[in-house]
């Protein structure tokens, strides 16, 4: 059985990749997917800790994260579609009418 840290390092790398995706890309759908990537990296850490602590509480947290992710995707994609209908494109840099 491997020790826990390879899994944790993998989780950290995936989380960082997700962060980079949000920072570099301007396409809201890909930014959104990067956020999903980050959530999944956190899930991997949860599962790793659950395995090595031998307590299944981590599995329950993963469930809750998945539910929140599903809710977030439903609303977020709804917003993207609404913006697209309104403006005809969805470049995030152009969505700055609300700045003061």
């Amino acid at each position, binding site marked *: 059985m491997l*020790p826990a*840290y*390879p*899994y*944790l*390092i993998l*989780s*950290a790398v*995936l989380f*960082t*990749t*997700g*962060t*980079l*995706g949000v*920072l*570099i890309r*301007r*396409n809201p*759908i*890909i930014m959104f*997917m*990067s956020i*999903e*990537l980050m959530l*999944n990296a956190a*899930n*991997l*850490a949860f*599962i790793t*800790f659950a*395995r*090595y*602590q*031998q307590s*299944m509480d981590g*599995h*329950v947290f*993963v*469930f*809750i994260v*998945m*539910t*929140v*992710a*599903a*809710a977030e*995707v*439903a*609303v977020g*994609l*709804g917003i*993207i*579609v*609404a913006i*697209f209908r309104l403006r005809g*494109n969805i*470049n995030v*840099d*152009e969505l700055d009418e609300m700045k003061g």
Partner: protein
Amino acid sequence: MIAELVIFIILGIVAVSSAFAVILSKNPVYAVLFLVINFFALAMLYLVLSAQFVAFIQILVYAGAIMVLFLFVVMLLNLTGAIESLQDKLPAQRWLAPALGMVLLVEIAVVFLSGFFAQVPEASELPEGFGTSAPVGMLLFSRYVLPFEVTSAVLLIAMVGSIVLAKRRP
């Protein structure tokens, strides 16, 4: 030990390379597919970590429902390429981001490998039925019943919200 190491390395390479493919691909449809591959690799890792129920749910919810929704929207809006504008409002971001990302990675690694989290016990024998559906259900409906109910409220709100957003105004 050796078998697990080999499996971990293969799945780790698949997961990391598909994650990079997600954030680097020009075409959103490809990004969605790479993300699905990434989720599959993670589900396999969950199986290795003896969390089989969560692994199935991962495939069912993420690959089977959430990513199909992404694909649906990408195809509906026909966003394949040419929408990423050439003029970036924060051009420095593109070059600063990798550096900041490395800082974040080091930071997470330090947190994971030191102090509180370093006390992760060494691997040992698991109790019978670890990671199967019954104990997860028991926990979900006993100790975590309040978060569970709150999630149902979250889902309801998301449902109402997305219907309001999607509704055409006359």
